[in-house]
């Protein structure tokens, strides 16, 4: 393989930069590629175009076509070849263009990628990262706005994470790439370029561990648990509730499989009330799993049932109906009211 090309672009003078989630992912990928020349990026349109969301912008120019590959248009092909590359020592980062198009690769993910380590009694490691832009609210046609993360969290052998802010975007993608297990990396696409979420990212800082959830706002009245795009919804709800003297705690799960629920249990033992929020349909989902585990661990602390604010159990609707489908601030606050009125 060709020697890694060191990037000379955008050399900041300080280690702190104000970034969107999209730009943080781009810089995180860049840092991972600089740190390890076995890291490859592959997917549809990831080269010259920089991906349809520009997350891989400039990577092919700086690291070459050997390391940033525009593949033929086939998701099973992308993931299957990534498995083979990983078996031979590479660390492929696959981009799936939209979550709705991951399914031609589902067999490779669930039957191959997830099981190879187990089948070989640990003999083969498959450190593949699959980046998946997900979630709704972008006014798109069908198959561009779904939240299929629970399907992957259900598969033993995979790790599933989702970032919700630029700092995590920058660090989590690098940590996922360093992880020896396959990681499904879900990215909240409607927030990619959100100026409102721009935040200072210190590229010299010590990051939090990857498979750990985090309390992002402290409160005492009720606990909101969310991940990805729904974290912002919960934080906005908590801000609005504060005006009514309601103190809501917000936990960003960050890791969906394995779940890190200790911080949630600890919080629920204090607040006695839990609302889980996600855009995915509720039946047999991550939010169901949390509800089950919390009632098991915190039964005597609960003052109301665990409530779920989620997408409906329907296919993702056409864009003109998505505002009715997506959990929003009002729906979260309504659930808080219900929990408090129990």
């Amino acid at each position, binding site marked *: 393989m060709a020697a890694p090309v060191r990037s000379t672009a955008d050399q900041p003078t300080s280690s702190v930069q104000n970034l969107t989630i999209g730009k943080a992912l781009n810089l995180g990928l860049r840092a991972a590629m600089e740190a390890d020349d076995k890291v490859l990026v592959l997917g549809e*349109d990831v080269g*010259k175009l920089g991906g349809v969301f520009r997350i891989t912008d400039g990577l092919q120019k700086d690291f070459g076509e050997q390391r940033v590959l525009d593949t033929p248009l086939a998701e099973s092909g992308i993931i299957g070849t990534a498995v083979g590359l990983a078996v031979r020592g590479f660390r492929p980062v696959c981009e799936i263009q939209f979550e709705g198009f991951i399914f031609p690769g589902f067999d490779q993910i669930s039957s191959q990628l997830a099981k190879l380590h187990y089948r070989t009694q640990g003999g083969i490691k498959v450190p593949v990262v699959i980046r998946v832009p997900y979630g709704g609210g972008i006014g798109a046609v069908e198959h561009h706005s779904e939240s299929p993360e629970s399907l992957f969290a259900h598969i033993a052998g995979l790790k599933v994470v989702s970032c919700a802010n630029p700092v995590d975007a920058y660090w989590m993608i690098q940590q996922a790439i360093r992880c020896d297990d396959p990681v499904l990396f879900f990215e909240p696409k409607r927030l990619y370029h959100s100026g409102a979420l721009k935040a200072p990212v210190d590229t010299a800082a010590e990051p939090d561990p990857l498979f750990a959830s985090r309390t992002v706002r402290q409160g005492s009245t009720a606990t909101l648990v969310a991940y990805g795009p729904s974290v912002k919804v919960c934080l906005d709800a908590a801000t609005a509730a504060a005006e009514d003297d309601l103190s809501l705690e917000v936990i960003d799960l960050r890791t969906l499989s394995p779940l890190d629920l200790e911080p949630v249990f600890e919080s629920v033992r204090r607040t006695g009330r839990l609302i889980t929020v996600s855009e995915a349909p509720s039946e047999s989902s991550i939010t169901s799993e949390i509800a089950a585990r919390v009632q098991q661990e915190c039964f005597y602390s609960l003052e109301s049932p665990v409530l779920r604010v989620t997408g409906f159990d329907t296919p993702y609707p056409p864009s003109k*109906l998505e505002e009715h489908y997506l959990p929003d601030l009002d729906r979260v606050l309504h659930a808080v009211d219900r929990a408090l009125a129990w």
Partner: protein
Amino acid sequence: MEELRMVRLLDADGGAVEDDRYPMPPPEVLVDAYRALVRGKRLNEQASALVRQGRLAVYPSSRGQEACQVTAAAVLRPGDWLFPTYRDTVAVVERGVDPVEVLTLLRGDWHCGYDPSRHRVAPQATPLATQLLHAVGAAHAATLRGEDTVVLALCGDGATSEGDFHEALNFAAVFAAPVVFLVQNNKYAISVPLARQSVAPSLAHKGIGYGMPGVLVDGNDTAALTAVLGEAVTRAAGGGGPTLVEADTYRIDAHTNADDASRYRTDDEVAAWARRDPLVRLRAYLRGLAVLDDEREAEFTAAAEADAARLRAALADDRPPEPAELFAHVRATPTPQLAAQAASLRAELAAERRQPEEER
């Protein structure tokens, strides 16, 4: 590997070209095709304008590919079926579906705005190549039902890389299904050029690999497309099995309005293909035959304008769909869970109506 000789009946200037394999279609068929091209081109322009005006969410234009679009519809008989993609609005319209109904998808009102069974047009497929297997199944159903129905399925060059494409070709060949695959090779899959999809001498070769005729045709030559697709449909209807047709064409517009094509191709390349415009070529030929005069052309233009005006008017009325539609068709039989969820949304909307906006 042996190259396939491309079928071409009209050169770029509209001059007739002899091809020992295919006869020139009769003038009246081509005059009607020209009418359709004028209408299709106008529809592409109008829909693109409607995106800029915020009336459509997105429009994948078939500008430059109008010959493929209109011919795919024209060669089908009333009982035949068409399996289109997101890019094939013009083909679906030419098949007889109201443009307003077709654009329901791209407007964000519903996932399919027409009745597939009535028009014998499957819903436009977004997940690439999935529709090709459905087309094979529908074609095999015709065999089982003893009908002479033919199915024509559309896809792009990029979609030929998907596994479903290959499975569809193989199933079709093994079942000897009455299906015609038309690959519109417009040279790009968003930004990815053909060379990144396939290094075969042509995409038509893939048909040969699966044991069916593979035909490479000039995709901007309406006469050649009419001859090639017409023959493939006739053969399928007569029990002769499937055909893969590759149309050599070009996507003149960006992938969609959201795409910036300047990132991956040059203006010169686009300009060279613009000179091979399917309308210019067919018009010159028909004018030369003296079967197309100013009056006919004015008639076609006026009809296309009337269509465009009707579309503008219809899309100006942007009443949102009913929220209850969210739940109405998830399963053939409604479930209690969904009824409860529908009721919760109704209650939420009723409460919002009771509360004036500023209080929320």
